[in-house]
């Protein structure tokens, strides 16, 4: 009896938590479907009285979303790829090799972790100007080719791999980068997945940097398109903003949705392994 009550309480708690998480998502979708006359009502309306598909058309036409979408996918993919390569190489060296200056480099990485972009953006901007890369894809990607966050996170994960595994792999003729590829990365998979998702969201949503370094619509990214719908002085068209938000957030939500199974599984595995 006690157990049944406990179960019911547990399910109730889970349901409430799920509702709290799902609520904003639901509101986002519903608002994106409402005609603007139904957006602001004295009491919230849970369902659109009339579904206004034109919101999506209007929002899509409000900015060059097609081009922005392609750019966002390309830039984010390039950043994630480069960050994974550089972070795992750096983390490999910092976690599993001894060399002069390692402590200092680690210290510098941790330092870089806590420096906000507002501090580095000028230096990066001027560097890119010297390279002649401003207003190009290079400017969107190069400053994020390395990640202190990823390096630190992966280093911690790589440290947790027992030395004996590395010795065993060595006797099996697997050393250096092969060890990184066949052992460290697979064994750190939950961390790698978490890092990729965090970096994906951060760079997919990045607004400040692309706006600072680009002037051409052809190379700009989705959040800039979204920003065009948010106003500071004058009031925002909420239904269009919500529709535009779906363009931006939608792909990431789909990625989460598709990877969530795997994401959860890798966490379960991590629990069993140790």
């Amino acid at each position, binding site marked *: 009896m006690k157990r049944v009550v406990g179960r019911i309480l547990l399910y109730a708690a889970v349901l409430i938590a799920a509702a709290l998480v799902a609520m904003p998502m639901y509101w986002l979708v519903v608002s994106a479907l409402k005609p603007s006359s139904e957006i602001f009502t004295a009491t919230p309306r849970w369902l659109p009285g009339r579904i206004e598909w034109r919101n999506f058309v209007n929002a899509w036409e409000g900015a060059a979303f097609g081009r922005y979408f392609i750019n966002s996918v390309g830039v984010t993919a390039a950043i994630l790829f480069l960050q994974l390569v550089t972070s795992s190489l750096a983390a490999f060296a910092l976690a599993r090799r001894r060399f002069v200056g390692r402590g200092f480099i680690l210290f510098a990485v941790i330092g870089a972790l806590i420096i906000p972009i507002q501090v580095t953006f000028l230096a990066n901007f001027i560097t890119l100007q010297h390279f002649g890369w401003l207003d190009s894809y290079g400017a969107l990607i190069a400053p994020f080719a390395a990640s202190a966050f990823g390096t630190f996170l992966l280093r911690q994960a790589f440290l947790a791999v027992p030395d004996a595994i590395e010795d065993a792999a060595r006797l099996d003729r697997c050393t250096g980068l092969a060890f990184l590829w066949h052992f460290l990365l697979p064994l750190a998979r939950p961390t790698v997945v978490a890092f990729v998702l965090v970096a994906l969201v951060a760079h997919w949503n990045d607004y400040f940097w692309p706006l600072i370094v680009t002037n051409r619509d052809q190379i700009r990214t989705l959040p800039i398109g979204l920003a065009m719908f948010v106003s500071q002085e004058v*009031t925002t068209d909420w239904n269009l903003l919500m529709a535009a938000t779906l363009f931006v957030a939608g792909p990431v939500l789909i990625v989460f949705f598709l990877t969530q199974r795997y994401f959860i599984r890798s966490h379960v595995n991590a629990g069993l392994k140790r």
Partner: protein
Amino acid sequence: MRFGRVLVAAAIAAIAGWTIPANADPVALSFWYPVDVGGGLTKIVDGLMADFNKTHPGIKVTAVYTGNYDVTLQKIQAGKLAGTLPDVGVTEISSVPVLASLGAAQPLDTLIAGSGGAKFLDKFWPSMLLNSRYQGKVYGIPFQRSTPVLYYNKDAFKEVGLDPNKPPETWAEMASDAEKLTKRDGGRVTRWGVELPLEAFNWFYYALVYQNGGQSLSADGTHVLWDQPKDIGALQYWYDLVNKYKVTPAYTPWNDGPPEFVAGRTAMIWHSTGSQSFMRQHVKFHWGMGRLPKNVQFGPPSGGANMMLYDTDPAKQKAAWTLITWLSAPAQAARWSAASGYLATSMAAWNEPEMQALVKKHPDVLVTKEQLKDAKAEPASPKYAPARDILNGLIKAVLANKEPLVAGAKKATAEANAAMAQ
């Protein structure tokens, strides 16, 4: 012989990389703008630029959307260091001293002199030029300008027995009207009397200080005056609306204001003239606009953005100036104003067909014009940015009763003055 000379000259020109002036490519200009209003307005900017390019074959302007006011400012500051400034940029009016002192924006006096001097400037509403100068020189030309007005719910006025055609004109009237208009269900407020939304630029604080006959920044722009009696009085009035009369919430985010008004959750609201079109589109009751009330005087603050010029090369300056004067000419100013809800910057613009049509359709637009004669400058100085944030924190803390008013104002004043002295 002569032919030979031409050949030599041509060769030299080619080697030196000169372009032959005749049949030259048009002067390329960039125009950075932080419209901050929906996708639709970027289209209007693009349309304006297309028309300009069509009518000015020697110049080719590219419009670049640059995000909100803060990012635009940072982009220009970075551009100054990297040498990637635009030719013309639109920035929030308080950035004039910031970008002028940095040597990024260029003084316009010579160009103005070439365009008629004082006569050129006299076309603008005088109050719109209050934020244009730095150290005696003109840098900013008005472009997208706004001022706050009082929006009020006429049905609610009628409901509580107030004259729906007489919005409050003084602080005292506004407080007493708001008390009547505030509706409570038990302890819970279902309708506020009035809302004064807060944004990063602290607009309504400056409004209250001006209305109280004060200044919030010293004339030389070196220190803030928030601990002075008139400034204290202004914040005290706001504090009383929240905590004594209990007719306004301690904090309303800027963007929440108009939807709250539309939804009937507040009977009056202070907001930008730029929100008119939103109100027209969404409000389902009778409503009107009034001037912001006065205490010792009317004192609406200025807002919005000016155009500034960043070229040092005379040929480019000339082209950029052509663009600036074209955009501020009545026809374009009216077109921009009617489409965006920003204020028409020149008196003549009100006579343009677009504005005439607007006035005919919505006569209360004239309130915004009426109010312009009282408008005051927005506090600005090269190092004001940290003070702006400190003031924002002070207002929130005092209204929420987290900090005592007088002591808090003194502390914030000292803090801001120290930050500005650095």
